[in-house]
């Protein structure tokens, strides 16, 4: 959809040095938005910057007709976005792309790296708890980042989470894959006695973060036989599948390499089909 959405809120959240903003948009996008989808926003009328900016939908409130976006000021586009004021209107394409599958039972393991947690927010809200148990593994640079990117929000939601930081300033020091791997080991130990695997609660996983992390998480899930969906980020131009700028590489059933478009066929893909570091 090609929309004019009203900016209800647009403000810095957390530590200024982290430059993370929360934006709430009111309009039609909320009606059909699904977790994992994104909106493609024109940040200014000028042709510099030229392209729209893709941002994940981090919150969906159909009643209030609002979606929430979290973004980090990364360059000139997001800087311009941060200067937009409440009550102004933004040109928005979306919701775009194919979102996450939402499990209806079992345990849902969420793995987020850095600002990759933003799409995970709307995903968590969409999961019916407690029928589905959620556990989040979130890794970040440091405490300041995690606080700015929504740690308190997680605590308010009462989500079960484990935190890692690169510098050890909060949670465990290291990579987010460490506690994830450890947790899977515990789970598999605790079910070691159960012969009939249909009796164990099904495990599902979804991840979003930098490519290196996604690749590692994919390996872990493949080893453990856990179905994983990953949300990929690629530079985008059109956002609707027309330009072929944002492709990722997958292996099809016949074993051949193929391209899929992150904007249209994704950004969420089944991890097992993704060919990491395709090099072609």
């Amino acid at each position, binding site marked *: *959809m*090609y929309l004019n959405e009203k900016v209800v809120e647009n403000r810095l959240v957390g530590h200024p040095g982290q430059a993370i903003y929360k934006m709430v948009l009111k309009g039609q996008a909320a009606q059909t938005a699904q977790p994992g989808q994104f909106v493609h926003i*024109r940040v200014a009328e000028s*042709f*510099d*910057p*030229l*392209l*729209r900016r893709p941002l994940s939908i981090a919150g969906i409130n159909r009643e209030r007709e609002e979606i929430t976006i979290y973004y980090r000021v990364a360059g000139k586009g997001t800087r311009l976005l941060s200067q937009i004021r409440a009550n102004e209107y933004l*040109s928005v*394409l979306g919701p775009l792309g194919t979102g996450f599958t939402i499990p209806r039972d079992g345990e849902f393991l969420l793995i987020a790296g850095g600002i990759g947690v933003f799409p995970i927010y709307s995903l968590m809200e969409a999961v019916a708890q407690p029928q589905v148990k959620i556990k989040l593994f979130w890794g970040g640079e440091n405490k300041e980042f995690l606080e700015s990117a929504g740690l308190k929000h997680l605590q308010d939601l009462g989500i079960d989470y484990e935190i890692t930081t690169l510098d050890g300033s909060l949670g465990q020091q290291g990579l987010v894959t460490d506690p994830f791997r450890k947790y899977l080991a515990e789970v598999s130990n605790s079910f070691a006695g159960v012969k009939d695997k249909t009796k164990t609660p099904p495990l599902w996983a979804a991840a979003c973060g930098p490519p290196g992390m996604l690749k590692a998480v994919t390996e872990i899930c493949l080893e453990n036989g856990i179905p994983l969906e990953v949300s990929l980020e*690629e*530079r*985008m*131009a*059109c*956002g*609707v*599948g*027309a*330009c*072929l*700028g*944002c*492709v*990722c*590489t997958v292996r099809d059933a016949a074993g051949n*390499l*193929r*391209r899929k478009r992150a904007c*249209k066929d994704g950004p969420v893909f089944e991890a097992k089909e993704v060919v990491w570091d*395709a*090099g*072609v």
Partner: protein
Amino acid sequence: MQEYSNGHQVDLTTRLGTLVLRNPVITASGTYGFGEEYAAYCSPSSLGAITVKGITPLPRLGNPVPRLAETPAGLLNSVGLENPGLEEFINSYLPKLAQLDTAVIVNISGFSLEDYSLMASALEEHSRPKNRDQARSGGIAALEVNISCPNIKHGGMAFGTNPKSAEAVVQAVKRNTTLPVIAKLSPNVTDIAEMAKAVSSGGADIISLINTLLGMSIDIRTQKPVLANKMGGLSGPAIRPVAVRMVYQVYEAVELPLIGMGGIATWEDAVEFMLAGASAVSIGTANFVNPMAPLEILKGLEDYCRQRGYHSVQEIVGLAHG
């Protein structure tokens, strides 16, 4: 021009030799997918024509990512002609395209003269409208010969920067088709008029220009080119002055009808190209910025003509000359 009232109809019909379009607004190859992607925003049925992504004889994965880099008022791309290949195009895409109520221009790229001949003759079979109605809406309306893609190692732009090869390619296509042949020129040449004359000698019915300017962007953090393919094609408003200049020059060099493109984002830009000598305009990168751009441009063109008392949009073509 007081003889016309402000409310008169403007005839938008656009005759490019034997290719007749209902209006002069076309979408550019590689920026409008295969006609489906933008359909919800800008219906193909309101456009003069759509041009599909460049097709090659065999399927191509294209270049690795990153394929895009933004520059001031511009976009670098190195998609590298990712496409399903001729066979799959004919089997899976063409039937859907034929159902669109618009003229479909198929953009073809090759690595040898044989490639071009082969594609022309294969597509020839699928070009014949099954009935009278399809003359406008079905089948293939024209072939656009891409001799100007900067994103592939062999062929592509090489054909488009040498007058002799450009002529030969157009000739090869022309020999194998009854469809109108559009030769798409590369701007990466010293003398665009010379290239236009060459494709004209080769038998081109229409010339389209410009394809992208060869460019590059370097990431100062990684100290490597941003695009995996190093270089890419520059499009968007940044290149508009170069494109307008080339349309103006080619208009003076050859008699063929021209399709102008390169950075058109507003109706004012479209008027500029038509005044420079383009009989039709093609919208590329602007689709990414504003999916409604082609429709807004069409409306603006019509209003411009109406307000100035032109009966046909074609009256403004080339007015900036002389």
